[in-house]
């Protein structure tokens, strides 16, 4: 080719131009697809906001669901979501970090480890509704726990466990090897090295993963529906804190509940447009929460990368 190119500069120029044009066209298509995707996301957000923003009032946040759309609110839903998330975080984060720590730092290279790795990866791909069936058959009926906040939190914790595990492992892999050696070098044992040195260093990365996992859990609807959580809850669970000793109380764990996405699903499934407004308003709140959490996670990761680089 170079021979002909040398012989015919015009021909070369044409070829170069043709290739440049090809690249330009593909680059444009790429950007176009991106714009379509972004446009869709924007349309979705603005559609929700247009439909629902008018309903987001203090009364909406402080009212129970109602048969009259205009008086209905998401009080029980957002309190339910908050309490369920507490359970999910308390269960999923330690278990996920523990599993990630084991797989990354302790696990010998053998068949058992391999089996666990395949398992974790497969669990990440199990549809969320299957977790709901697991919870229905196991927690609700086999263990007789009923449709409670505890069960809701547990099922979402199992669901996001693979996310926390994968994030933990990535965060651990980013810890410089020198830190590990110097910590062992002072005579620390394996657990001391992990607890005092490795985990603190991996904390921002683990936190990012935990937030992403929790934001996924906040929006999950299917497993909560499957365990048969009621959609009409016009009361609040017992308060976790009280004015008299012992100040904390765990009765709320055994309380029935509803969560934001269930409330939204309930309203979107009704024929009346007025309820659709409520659904949109709930969607705005839900979207706001998940995007905020993800934005925070992205920011954390960005800051983390910057500090690692310098």
């Amino acid at each position: 080719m170079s021979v002909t190119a040398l012989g015919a500069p015009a021909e070369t120029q044409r070829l170069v131009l043709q290739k440049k044009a090809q690249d330009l066209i593909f680059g444009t298509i790429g950007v176009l697809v991106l714009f379509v995707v972004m446009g869709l996301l924007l349309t979705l957000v603005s559609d929700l906001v247009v439909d629902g923003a008018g309903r987001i009032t203090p009364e909406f946040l402080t009212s129970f669901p109602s048969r009259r759309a205009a008086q209905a609110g998401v009080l029980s839903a957002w309190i339910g979501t908050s309490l369920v998330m507490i359970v999910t975080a308390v269960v999923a984060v330690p278990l996920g970090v523990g599993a990630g720590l084991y797989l990354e730092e302790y696990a010998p290279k053998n068949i058992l480890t391999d089996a666990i790795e395949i398992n974790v990866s497969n669990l990440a791909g199990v549809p969320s509704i299957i977790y709901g069936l697991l919870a229905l058959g196991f927690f609700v009926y086999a263990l007789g726990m009923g449709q409670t906040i505890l069960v809701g939190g547990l099922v979402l914790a199992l669901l996001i466990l693979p996310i926390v595990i994968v994030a933990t492992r990535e965060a651990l892999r980013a810890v410089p090897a020198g830190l590990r050696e110097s910590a062992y070098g002072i005579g620390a044992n394996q657990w001391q090295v992990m607890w005092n040195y490795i985990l603190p260093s991996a904390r921002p990365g683990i936190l990012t993963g935990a937030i992403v996992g929790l934001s996924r859990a906040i929006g999950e609807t299917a497993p909560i529906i499957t365990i048969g959580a009621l959609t009409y809850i016009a009361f609040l669970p017992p308060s976790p804190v009280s004015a008299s000793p012992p100040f904390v109380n765990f009765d709320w764990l055994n309380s029935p509940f509803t969560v934001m996405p269930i409330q939204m699903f309930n309203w979107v499934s009704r024929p009346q447009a007025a309820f659709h407004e409520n659904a949109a308003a709930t969607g705005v709140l839900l979207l706001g929460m998940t995007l905020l959490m993800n934005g925070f996670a992205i920011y954390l990761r960005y800051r983390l990368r910057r500090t690692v680089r310098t």
Partner: protein
Amino acid sequence: MTTTGSPLSEYEALRASPFLRRGRVLAAVMKVVLFACAALSVVITAAIVWVLVSESLPFFREIPLTTFLTDTEWTPVFTNARYGILPLLSATFWAAGIAMAVATPLGLVLAVYLSEFARPGVREALKPILEMLAAVPTVVFGYFALLFLTPLARQFIPGLSGFNLLIPGIVMGVMILPYVVSISEDAMRAVPMSLREGAFAVGMSRVQMAFSVIIPGAFSGVTAAYLLGFSRAVGETMVVAIAAGQNPNLTGDPREGAATITAYIVQMSLGDLPHGSLAYSTIFAAGLTLFVITLVFNLLGFFLRRKFREAY
């Protein structure tokens, strides 16, 4: 300084130190605890299989497997109940197929663009947008499909029902896009730089390089991305439960509504389901079917991805 003195007695003293002994015990205990955390994933999988199988056993005792797999009607709550999973399966595959029809070309273009065309700064700026897209709750996508896109599309597509498979399928395609793009892009970026340089050296344009070197080079990784994406679409619940309707319908027309496996489970869960009833065990039979399908695709995807990682 203790440079003098007996090392052996110091060693013995250290070994006998109650503090260090406690540390050793704690370290040993934690090792077991951490192993238990990791092994929990195996327990969860086992529990899933156990629950799905044991709870659907009553169903399969009543209904022969051949009927389940070949009957063309699914009407478990009717008086003359029929138990053929085909209508649910067909709707599931229709919706997931449409999702793939959207996600495959868009995902390929985006992955190639991000991996080969976008400058690092641009890529860093664009990835969060995809992550945000992935963060949108599925119930919100369902709302969007049912109350925005479907009414809009009905003005252009004659015969499109209020509940249909087409629109939720398209929305699911967009939903799995970030996931598919992220895995395929990882695969493409793992293709060694030397192959790219080789392609440029023989005078290829970037597009030619991408399609004749990068995509073939990353083929198993990209295929894994699609397998995993398909598995997600099959298991996706809320979009189809909201926008595809809850009526089992063996149809060849995606403009009609039809319940998927997941939508059926949702619909039944919303009603009163007495534990132990045949209706109760139908959702586990449906769930078991779903689990087997996604398991096959997940494992295929997992091993393809691992094979790809080993190749580079």
